[in-house]
Structures are given as structure tokens and as C-alpha cells.
């Protein structure tokens, strides 16, 4: 099972996890990213490169399935305007081996954070707005994984 979705709308984590649990692998790992509030943030705007995103996420999912013995995975990334508390991203993996489920989940979220063609703009209560700067750490981490 490979489910990849790049969408504006929210998703239901329980539905995703139930599908992964039903694969019978015994172990399901997940990571959910949520918009953090604070500092007067009123919304995050996520822009992406539609022609590239789905294909790239699809490709990295194939890589994860080649590298770890996975029974299935589910990757969802939202775009558009998201308020604090909203889910942005979900990665779920299922395997007979808990280390495979956990490591592939970490691999995929690291990749999404550092290599997927998404850009975040922060909007603040005072009307200010600015693009989030990439963290050097994330760029370095992605290179380590991807080789």
C-alpha cells in the first residue's frame, strides 16, 4: 500500500492509521506535523510546485519502500493557508519490524522537511509577513540521507 496525497484540505489521522494497522504488519509508526502558534502568528501559507510535488513525494516513497521492508506507507502534505493547530503533514509507515517502521518514518519526514518543494510564509497579527528561512541543519540532513 502506498498512499501519497498533496492537498489543501485536512485529513483524518485515525483513518490513515487504521489502514496501516489493517495491513497486518504488527507495527505502525507515524509523525504528524502541526502549525505552531506563538509570537503573534495568525497563519502559515504553504506554497508548493505542483508539477513537481506529487512526483517527487511518490519517488521518495518508492525509495523508502526499497530501503526498508514496509507493508505500506501513507504521506500527506497540505498546502494553502493553515492556522495554528492545523495539521500540515502526516507520515505513516507499517512494517513487521518496528525499527523499519520508525526509521522509514523519520527518513520520510526529514525528506519532506528538507527536500520537498514547499515554502512556508508566516503571517502575523500585526500584518507583518515573511518567508521562513531554511535551516542549514535540514539541508545537511537531507544530503546525508539521500547520499
Amino acid at each position, binding site marked *: 500500500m502506498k498512499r501519497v496525497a498533496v492537498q489543501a484540505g485536512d485529513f483524518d489521522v485515525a483513518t490513515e492509521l487504521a489502514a496501516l494497522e489493517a495491513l497486518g504488519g504488527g507495527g505502525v509508526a507515524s509523525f504528524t506535523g502541526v502549525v505552531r502558534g506563538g509570537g503573534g502568528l495568525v497563519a502559515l501559507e504553504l*506554497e*508548493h510546485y505542483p*508539477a513537481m510535488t506529487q512526483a517527487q513525494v511518490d519517488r521518495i516513497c518508492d525509495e523508502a519502500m526499497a530501503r526498508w521492508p514496509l507493508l505500506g506507507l501513507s504521506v500527506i502534505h497540505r498546502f494553502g493557508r493553515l492556522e495554528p493547530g492545523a495539521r500540515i*503533514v502526516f507520515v505513516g509507515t507499517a512494517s513487521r519490524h518496528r525499527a523499519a517502521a520508525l526509521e522509514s518514518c523519520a527518513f520520510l519526514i526529514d525528506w*519532506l522537511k528538507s527536500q520537498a518543494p*514547499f*515554502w512556508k*510564509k508566516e503571517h502575523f497579527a500585526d500584518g507583518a509577513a515573511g518567508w521562513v528561512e*531554511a535551516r542549514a541543519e535540514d539541508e545537511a540532513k537531507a544530503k546525508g540521507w539521500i547520499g
Partner: protein
Amino acid sequence: MLTIVYFAWVRERIGLDEEQVARPDAGTSIADLVAMLAARGGGHAEALGDATRLRAALDQRFVALDSPIGDARELALFPPVTGG
């Protein structure tokens, strides 16, 4: 012609989502083309003046800025990604 697409603050500074430019010689690097575009001044200079802040993709594949444009149909220019 070559289609160039822009994202995030590169798009905002240039004021365009995409534009068509005359296709450069296949051996021209992305960095060379970026320098030519920046030389137009205005938003292009603002967005593309410092190539160290830019990342690129050719036909939806990430590539280094010193890569030749070759026969690509679409060049994308953008800041480092900040997804997830």
C-alpha cells in the same frame, strides 16, 4: 523558448509566477542565465541578484546552479525549501 517558474519570495519580488525567455545555448548554465536575468534590474535584480540564496530545478528535478540548461523545457528558481 524556455519557461521559467518562480516560487516564494523569488516569485513575489519578480512579480510573476512564470515567464518565457528566449532559449539560451544548451551549454549555458543556470547561474549564467540567472545573472542575465538579474541584469534586467528591478524585481529581477532584487530576486536573483544573490545566486547563493537560490535553488533550481530543471524539468521538475533539483539540480545545482552550475548545471547546463541543455534541452530542458522548464526551469524553476526558488529559495531553499521549507516544507513539512
